[in-house]
């Protein structure tokens, strides 16, 4: 099972700080599509968010991840 950490407006819209995908392995693109299917009202913020894998931004959505990875979906940041 893959878990995805969520933050800020994304966390509020998904109503959980940690969304659980049914997959054992998946590309980030598949996870994104699954999220949009489960939360169609959050499509805009999901698509404007970037994935991080093990605390590093993913370069693209082709990357395959598994249940051992720490996955986070990072909505547009507003620090500083």
């Amino acid at each position: 099972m893959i878990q995805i950490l969520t933050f800020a407006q994304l966390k509020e819209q998904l109503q959980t700080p940690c969304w659980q995908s049914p997959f054992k392995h998946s590309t980030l693109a598949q996870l994104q599509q699954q999220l949009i299917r489960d939360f169609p009202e959050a499509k805009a913020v999901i698509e404007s968010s970037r994935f991080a894998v093990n605390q590093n931004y993913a370069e693209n959505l082709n990357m395959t991840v598994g249940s051992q990875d720490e996955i986070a979906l990072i909505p547009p940041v507003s620090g500083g």
Partner: protein
Amino acid sequence: MTTRVDIWERPLSLDYVMDQVSAPHVGAISTFSGIVRNHNLGKAVRYLEYECYAPMAKKEMEILREQALQQWQLHDIAMVHRVGRLDIGESAIVIAVASAHREDGLAALKYTIDTLKATVPIWKKEYWEDGSMWLENCCG
């Protein structure tokens, strides 16, 4: 990971980051403090709440610190970001850059705050009298 980047839930201190970068061969210390304003986009702000993805935020701050140290002739950089509830006039971020010469320090300071605002996973929510909203650093 050094202690030169950090995230605090308590009030920040500019003196703290300045002390961290001071040394006898430092000729210039440039600092930046990002402060909670009483208004934004035409609305009166009551307070802000900052949230972060702490381990990755520290990692990204360390990455941009290393990039600046490689790009310019610097003695040191220290920065602390605050999270939790912040009232008007309180600092959300303090950065100090120490250099032998001012040009490098000022350029690195601008790079550091610009990059931090673009890459570090920290979010702020603005609270008004009649509502609240998560912000995005779209245009500085």
